[in-house]
């Protein structure tokens, strides 16, 4: 009798944990979408600072970072701080290092990070027109990412949750 209760409890735990994993994966998808949407807003602010206010990168990153807040806002603030420190490194080098140093909680794929690094490659180079074109190109990339994440949001959420539950059930049956 005791053995049966133990088995039932084990089965329930397996199902719960597998389902939890499924829900977590679905939530991560949503979080990824939110992060990219937030980043898009920040890039728009940055564009305004550079193109309309004609601010240098230090100032543009600082103001955008303060307005936006969050982990991504912190990234911009740190970049601004590094630039102000004038330690003799290139902008692209500082930008890359700060992106690599992003905390793990920030929901960005390695492809997103690569694209974000690409933005820094040409920022500061040549005239205002060049800055605007560089930012617009990156915004296009962000729009594509957002479209993909939105289009597959429901499908992926459903897939991850049902896979989690089904996986839990499957494991329970196999182990029973």
């Amino acid at each position, binding site marked *: 009798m005791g053995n049966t209760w133990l088995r039932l409890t084990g089965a329930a735990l397996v199902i719960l944990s597998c389902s939890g994993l499924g829900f977590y994966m679905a939530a991560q998808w949503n979080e990824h979408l939110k992060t990219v949407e937030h980043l898009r807003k920040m890039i728009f602010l940055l564009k305004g600072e550079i193109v309309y206010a004609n601010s240098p990168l230090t100032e543009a990153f600082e103001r955008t970072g303060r307005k936006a807040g969050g982990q991504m806002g912190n990234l911009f603030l740190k970049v601004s701080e590094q630039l102000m420190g*004038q330690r003799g490194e290139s902008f692209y080098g500082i930008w890359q290092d700060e992106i690599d140093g992003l905390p793990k909680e920030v929901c960005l794929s390695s492809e997103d990070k690569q694209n974000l690094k690409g933005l820094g490659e040409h920022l*500061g180079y040549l005239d205002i027109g060049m800055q605007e074109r560089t930012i617009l190109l990156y915004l296009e990339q962000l729009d594509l990412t957002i479209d993909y994440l939105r289009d597959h949001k429901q499908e992926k959420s459903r897939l991850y949750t049902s896979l989690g539950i089904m996986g839990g059930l499957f494991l329970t049956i196999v182990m029973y």
Partner: protein
Amino acid sequence: MERKDELINLFSKNIREILNRVALNFDEVQEIRLRVAAPLMLVYKNEEYYLTGSGDISKKLEEAYIISKNELKETMEYMSNYSLYAFEEELKQGFLTVQGGHRIGIAGKTILDESGIKTMKYISFINIRLSHQVKGCASPILPFVYKNHREVCHTLIVSPPRCGKTTLLRDLIRQISDGSRDFEGMNVGVVDERSEIGACYQGAPQNDLGIRTDILDCCPKAKGMMMLIRTMSPRVIAVDEVGSREDLDAIEYVMNCGCKLIATVHGSSIEDLRQKPVLRTLLEERIFERYIVLNNLGKIGNIDQIFDSRGTQLYKANIFGAEVRPDRQESRAYG
């Protein structure tokens, strides 16, 4: 940040190391010059020196550190805060102003379009003029600039280049703005077309121009003077290096509005001004009430002569030093 550190951070890594080893008082350094494939030079106490790779100063060319193209490029990146695009207008005029109020003069290849200079590329020559504020240098001329301790005269400072006319103007603005026991403080509007007077960095003046001073930075003089009158109601307007026909119209506008004007102009003497068509008009119409002529003998801002609107000499320095002559000598420079 110390003045030296603030300045050194503007340079490429190699040049930073050299300047870090330099054992000079940076308050006395006037200029640092960088030219591609040429020696690193600095002007210290009015003397030109080469800098060696080990950070010593030398008069021997063969010991000088030679600057590469990449070092100049890197230096430009730091001077512009990695944002050369934000200095497009300044590049067209050939200078940047950086934190600390230092002026960076640049030269290279200009790119032209229909409206004139579009930008500059291949920047190969950089001249860093270190900002120096000499507080109190305008004190000797204050009694001549004020009328009845309450009113300021329309004043024109005449000076050859590098004699300290902007330094003198800067201190005059500060003293008029702050006021003192003898003279009351006044609202002063400054049109700083080339950021030389206030040396504004991100909107904040790096030089002390007084507590009642409003600065219109990087604004063309003629437009700026009119804007200030309409918006800030100054009692005194100060501008640097007047000389164009447009400036003359704006000067007349300022004077008709009841504002007092303090301006500077390039020239070695009053006679020199008479050779220039626009400035001759100023003299003939007796627009300015005081003409302060500087010379390059001795210290920066050395006053040579002071005249009134009719050309009567109010002051003359003798060769042994400044000598105030309160008794007005009846010699006429013009008119």
